[in-house]
């Protein structure tokens, strides 16, 4: 490719084109204006979504990345524009979401002088980025952009931030782009050691009570078919983590449900009965393990993981298989014996029956007055034939939605797991819809989180994105209230909200909607939301003081999971 003379900002946009970018989420401002000016000539090639706040832009990019598997692209200006991205960057870091964030910066000679809208975003974002870099000369742009995409998307994905000074945007360079294929100091994945596969297979073949954990690594490495083939051959029950949801069909016979604090009774309880745990692409989060010193004590641990720093970080492994989950599972399948583990499965069935009687029936088919979150989720899931993309915020509604929403396709669950970012849902749902325009996207949100990024209703309306927003409103910060009830003597310290007329707000943005508070109207209301041409806001007034169970109380062992208060 021959070089041509372009400005730094043109080079930046051309680099995005080389990387196949079709959607950018952003917000302009002084220090990134040259880039926006260059973008003006590319309106046919790339869609730019002007959000109402930079946090909306980055969560939008996260939603897009999670459903497409492509990196999310974010533009923001210097100073407050850049700092407003921080929550989303931290969220993407802990949930391994590939992002390339471009921030404008004051001109290089002004760096470090407290110039107008100057913030040291490179310094600030170090702990929450996979990599970051400040560009101060136009010549650096093509190479650094290529590295940014390579680093964000390979190995364990994550957010990368590139800070570009305004003079580098204005300057001229000889532009030539080459995709990055390697970096000397960075090996995204190691070749899988066949000895480790053999050692893992031996443990699997001997195990009487094996349990496989499906982490997001399955989705990130596109190993959905491999994990299915593996469990079908070995008959091993599979439990998914919050971010592993949708990697298998919900109704797969070997899927025993969700791990974690509000996960299913069986997988939590029986983790401490298992004699082998096969953890694939997951990181033993404290919400999954409960009290680590009493965690899976009867089990040997196989950890299949791409990030070497995760091995032995929380739980000591017996066999570590370092590398890509898809390749590891492919190698393992040939080395394991067929099995059914029938009596072991019966233990899960017994647990399921208990959970069903004590919790699930009451959540999904309540008879007492007052709507439950569970019944609303069940109806949406049924009416979308388990084919919708579910995007949630953080709190009670999130846990209920994750427990009861059904999935058929992978990459259908978008939630803020590790960071637990309230305000995530609305912009992430918008990004998910842009990434999967042909699919139904349902954003399930609580009344607290909704108001943290409610301004993105404007972005949804402006771009005519047919997002279905189901607001589960109990006029409380429900999860905090639940903890106050259970662990703080019902001292409801600052958790009650006096809420606005949400439907009126939606209408103000040009988004239709209505409120439902009666069981007999719920089905038709959800149908109306789903049938509506365009975005829709359905406010479901739910019982004020409902709780989420089962629950592994903080600091308790997973086998001490409780089913009722």
């Amino acid at each position, binding site marked *: 490719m021959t070089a041509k003379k372009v400005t730094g900002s043109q080079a930046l946009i051309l680099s995005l084109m080389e990387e196949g970018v079709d959607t950018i989420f952003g917000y302009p401002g002084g220090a990134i204006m040259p880039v926006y000016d260059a973008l003006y000539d590319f309106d046919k090639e790339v869609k730019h979504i002007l959000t109402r706040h930079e946090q909306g832009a980055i969560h939008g990019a996260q939603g897009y990345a999670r459903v497409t598997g492509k990196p999310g692209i974010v533009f923001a200006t210097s100073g407050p524009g850049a700092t407003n991205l921080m929550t989303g960057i931290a969220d993407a870091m802990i949930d391994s979401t590939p992002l390339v964030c471009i921030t404008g910066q004051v001109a290089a000679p002004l760096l470090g002088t407290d110039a107008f809208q100057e913030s040291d975003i*490179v*310094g600030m974002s*170090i702990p929450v980025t996979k990599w970051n870099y*400040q560009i101060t000369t136009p010549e650096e742009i093509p190479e650094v952009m290529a590295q940014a995409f390579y680093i964000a998307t390979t190995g364990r994905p994550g957010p990368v931030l590139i800070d570009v000074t305004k003079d580098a945007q204005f300057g001229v360079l000889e532009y030539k782009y080459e995709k990055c*294929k390697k970096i000397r*100091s960075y090996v995204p994945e190691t070749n899988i050691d066949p000895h480790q596969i053999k050692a893992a297979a031996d443990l699997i073949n001997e195990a009487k009570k094996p349990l496989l954990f499906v982490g997001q690594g399955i989705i990130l490495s596109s190993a959905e078919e491999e994990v299915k083939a593996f469990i079908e051959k070995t008959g091993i029950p599979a439990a998914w983590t919050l971010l592993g949801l949708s990697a298998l069909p919900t109704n797969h016979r070997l899927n025993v449900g969700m791990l974690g604090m509000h996960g299913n009774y069986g997988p939590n309880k029986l983790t401490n009965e298992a004699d082998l745990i096969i953890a694939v692409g997951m990181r033993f989060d404290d919400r999954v393990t409960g009290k680590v010193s009493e965690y899976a004590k009867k089990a040997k641990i196989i950890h299949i993981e791409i990030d*070497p*720093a995760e091995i032995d*970080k929380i739980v000591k492994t017996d066999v570590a298989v370092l590398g890509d989950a898809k390749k590891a599972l492919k190698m393992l399948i040939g080395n394991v014996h067929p099995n059914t583990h029938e009596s072991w499965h019966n233990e899960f069935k017994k647990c399921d029956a208990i959970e069903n009687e004590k919790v699930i029936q009451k959540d999904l088919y309540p008879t007492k007055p007052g709507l439950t979150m569970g019944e609303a989720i069940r109806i949406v899931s049924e009416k979308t034939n388990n084919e919708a993309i579910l995007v949630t915020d953080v709190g009670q509604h999130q846990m209920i939605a994750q427990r009861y929403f059904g999935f058929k396709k992978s990459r259908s669950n978008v939630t803020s797991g590790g960071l637990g970012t309230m305000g995530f849902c609305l912009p992430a749902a918008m990004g998910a819809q842009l990434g999967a325009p042909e699919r139904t996207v349902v954003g399930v949100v609580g009344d607290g989180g909704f108001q943290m990024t409610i301004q993105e209703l404007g972005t949804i309306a402006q771009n005519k994105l047919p997002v279905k927003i189901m607001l589960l409103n109990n006029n409380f910060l429900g999860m905090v209230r639940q903890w106050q009830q259970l662990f703080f003597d019902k001292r409801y310290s600052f958790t009650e909200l006096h809420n606005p007329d949400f439907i009126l707000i939606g209408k103000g943005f040009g988004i239709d909607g209505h409120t439902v508070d009666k069981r007999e109207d719920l089905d038709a209301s959800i149908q109306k939301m789903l049938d509506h041409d365009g975005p829709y806001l359905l406010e479901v007034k739910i019982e004020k003081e409902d709780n989420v169970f089962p629950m592994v109380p903080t600091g308790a062992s997973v086998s001490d999971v409780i089913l009722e208060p």
Partner: protein
Amino acid sequence: MKKEYILTVYSENHIGLLTRITNVFTRRKTNIDSLTVSESALHGIFKFTIVIHCTDAMAIKLVSQIEKQIDVLKAFYHTNDEMIFQEIALYKVPIEPIYESDTIEKIVRKAGARILEITKDYVVIEKTGHKEDTQALFEELNQFKVMQFIRSGRVAITRDPIERLSEFLKERDAFLTSLD
């Protein structure tokens, strides 16, 4: 059980990397006792020598978190007995006591230290050794009121006959070539 570890980190020379590395210690609430950074024998590759006090398990975790940083090539951890190490200390002492007696001269000779500069006001003494040695010399000289004292971070070399960095770079080069 906590003990002293020497971490050696080899990296590219990129702005901000020092913060990235020290941040790993901050997150794990581990204090850095000493830190030395300089170019290694290999052009363009920088070497950090970091002394910390922690458990074996923590040393392993810190090393893996440091290696995870994109611009870090390789990190190792060693116990003190696996390395030969030194620190250098400088002492600025007033000149009068030297005129008055030969005590300072004797102390310097006994400690294997050397005198770097003598002026009409002060003398600057240099001593290389382990922290205990340079500290002991400080205590002795301080009877004459040391005016300034500075000790460097540690520099260290492995006792291992195998040069693990060279081995590592060979492997890495082969791996990168295999990607072409």
